[in-house]
């Protein structure tokens, strides 16, 4: 059940120049699905005014771990958090990556389906829980992880420990294959197999992933990023343009749907739904 709590910071450690891991206590936390997020603010602060959305990276014994990248005012302030400081947490919010077996794209007897996780930089976040969920009903997983350079691959060590098959690309070639993660995807999809693609990362990357998957005729789900005010479907601020008018988004009449709401209808969407031209 979603809730709004004031909870304690357990730790806040820098793991790479621009990336931090924030551990927060959260008693009575029920299950969180891969892809879900929380809205966070520093308790008592109204500057920045709005809460910030963060995916749940790990589930701890009595709390969660957030993996965040420092990009602006809010995340810069977060770097100052120390153990014992308080934060307000609203969540868990949003939907999650579908179980490939129960997804509408699952074909008969798809035990051997291969999940390709495509992550760009901080887009890695939802995949750790997905990885932990493990060989989902027997499906296999591969992680394609791209970044600008070797300091843009947060959490890589965690995935290595999970024992997932990992392919890496960096734009500067400092580690893995030099180039884009979408090149890795093309290569992976060129192999024979039964695939489903899950992707999270910058909009440009997601757009290209969606194109590649579509061309390959492979099911693809993306986790979208949008500026949010409420996180709970109330403000209609996090709209994303959808392609087909037949899907019913947050409170719409079936007859005329242009927008869905990332925080409630998403953040995970079937890539086919999204109007990528408008992104």
């Amino acid at each position, binding site marked *: 059940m979603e809730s709004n709590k004031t909870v304690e910071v357990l730790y806040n450690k820098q793991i790479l120049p621009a990336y931090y891991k924030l551990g927060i206590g959260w008693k009575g936390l029920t299950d969180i699905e891969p892809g879900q997020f929380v809205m966070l603010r520093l308790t008592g602060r*109204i*500057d920045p005014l*709005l809460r910030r959305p963060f995916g749940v990276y790990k589930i701890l014994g009595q709390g969660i771990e957030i993996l965040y990248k420092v990009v602006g005012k809010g995340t810069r302030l977060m770097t100052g958090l120390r153990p014992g400081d308080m934060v307000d947490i609203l969540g868990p919010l949003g939907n999650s990556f579908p179980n490939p077996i129960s997804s509408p794209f699952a074909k008969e007897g798809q035990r051997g389906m291969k999940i390709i996780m495509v992550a760009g930089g901080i887009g890695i976040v939802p995949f750790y829980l997905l990885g932990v969920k493990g060989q989902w009903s027997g499906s296999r997983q591969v992680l394609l992880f791209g970044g600008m350079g070797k300091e843009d691959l947060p959490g890589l060590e965690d995935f290595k420990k999970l024992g997932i098959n990992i392919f890496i690309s960096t734009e500067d070639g400092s580690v893995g294959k030099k180039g884009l993660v979408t090149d890795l995807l093309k290569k992976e999809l060129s192999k024979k197999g039964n695939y489903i693609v899950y992707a999270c990362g910058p909009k440009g990357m997601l757009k290209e992933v969606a194109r590649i998957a579509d061309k390959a005729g492979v099911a693809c789900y993306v986790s979208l990023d*949008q500026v949010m*005010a409420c996180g*709970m479907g109330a*403000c*209609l601020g996090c*709209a994303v343009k959808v392609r087909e008018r037949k899907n019913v988004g947050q409170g719409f009449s079936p007859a005329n749907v242009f927008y869905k709401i990332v925080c409630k209808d998403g953040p995970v969407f079937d890539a086919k739904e999204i109007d990528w031209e408008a992104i």
Partner: protein
Amino acid sequence: MGSNIKKSAVRSQKSKTTPLTPPLQKGRAGGGAPDLSVNIAGINLKNPVMTASGTFGYGEEFAPYLDLNRLGAVVVKGLSLKPRQGNPPPRIVETAAGMLNSIGLQNVGVELFVEKKLPFLKKFDTKVIVNFFGDSIDEYCEVAKVLDSAEGVAGLEMNISCPNKQEGWLEFGTNPAMTFKVVSAVRKSTKLPLIVKLSPNVTDITAIAKAAKDAGADALSLINTLSGMAVDANTRRPKLGNIIGGLSGPAIKPVALKMVWQVFKAVKLPLIGIGGIMTAEDAIEFMLVGASAIQVGTANFVEPQASIKILEGIADYFKKNKIKSVKELVGSLQV
């Protein structure tokens, strides 16, 4: 509020015929808790705290986080005759002590509201005030008529910060004559209490307020958002898909307070104060300058329980200052 107020939304769902269940009333009268009730436009509110349109969805989004029964009223997202899609994203950007939104009045339309959203709200012992708009006088009237016949609507809040497509897309609320015309027409279309919500983007808000009163408004809400814009210096693009949006939040409180004060002195109508209310102290300030009730907007995003915390703070203030009724406070600024 007294401890008799039921904390669980489910437990305290009222039966439709008993608007205020007896235990609740006893609790309030007996417990020494201050009387926060207030009548606005003929609507009896158990307290002066409402949620502002567009910041509280259709109520149901917030039900997991607070007991809707405790609110004076819920004002729902602005409705139009037909569903509206709203503006292209991005629709939101944070600014200094505020935010801009360009939702573009996306909503499910009045019919779907009555069918799908109102039944949920009716389960609660709180007044439902329906915010609505149109892009022509006819459309305003049509929406009002639909709502007039819907059961469970306590009153209407008419948003006049909307472009009038018949008169050069000027906003109804920026011109006293247009305000008079559209409010008069709506007045004839509904028997429900009619609150007119004013735009702050005008030279003289008292002229608009007077026009609304003359046209038959029962109360006024103010203010709606200030018109504003944000730019990204790196991409050299506007930060909102719609370029221009509405500014809300603490940043606008001084403007809102001043307009409530101005209108309070110029027009004899109950006022609902809105704009940057984050704390009980803010709410009290609005009452001092003349608001009989207040609406909590952007604060709902910052803190889902903001409205309840504000309500509790108001009750504390009343107790501490031995204030007997809302009336005693309204407009009591010492100048």
